[in-house]
């Protein structure tokens, strides 16, 4: 069964450093998402991406965040200058088309900002 993959599984970084989280979507999916989950809390929407541009973003997704799909396969989330409060699990999710609601989630990247 096709699945969303994410790398790395765990990223430790110093405050102020840049991090790039990578996702490989399911090949025939068209809509891509990033969510985050702070430990013990609910999953929160960050951004949606379709047709090589951002469709929607939440208040969390400020100027420190960016997304791109540079090579047509990987879908990346960049945090330019990490803060302590960015520590969380980051999940990539993909959706095949608008005809269904089954977003497929990757296993997540645990980001720890020291």
């Amino acid at each position, binding site marked *: 069964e096709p699945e*969303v993959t994410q790398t790395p599984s765990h990223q430790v970084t110093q405050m102020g450093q840049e991090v790039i989280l990578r996702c490989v979507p399911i090949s025939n999916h068209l*809509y891509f*998402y990033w*969510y985050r989950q702070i430990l013990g*809390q*609910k*999953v*929160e*929407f960050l951004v*949606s991406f*379709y047709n090589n541009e951002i*469709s*929607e973003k*939440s208040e969390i997704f400020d100027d420190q965040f960016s997304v791109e799909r540079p090579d047509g396969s990987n879908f990346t989330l960049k945090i330019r200058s990490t803060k302590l409060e960015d520590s969380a699990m980051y*999940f990539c*999710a993909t*959706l095949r088309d*608008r005809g269904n*609601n*089954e*977003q*497929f*989630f*990757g*296993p*997540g990247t645990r980001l720890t900002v020291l």
Partner: protein
Amino acid sequence: GESVGLHLPTLSVQEGDNSIINCAYSNSASDYFIWYKQESGKGPQFIIDIRSNMDKRQGQRVTVLLNKTVKHLSLQIAATQPGDSAVYFCAENGSGAGSYQLTFGKGTKLSVIP
């Protein structure tokens, strides 16, 4: 603001019994409501969804009930098994220009007692 939330944070059920997980929502404009299962250390996994014009939908061992009058959603798991132990989130698809972002509730932890 409007949000999706859960009545109970934890639920313990004897193996073989039926489980009922509840969710209250406030955004009456949502088109779909979805249940996700999250096992420890993994990303959310789609279980079942229901459209806002339906009041019941059945899957394999799971049933979702939607009561729009009181804005209540429930997930029923028949013959609960140890593998059902996880955190269950209800979610609604976002309103807006079809980005289909998900808004998650806080989650209910289901523990199955062997």
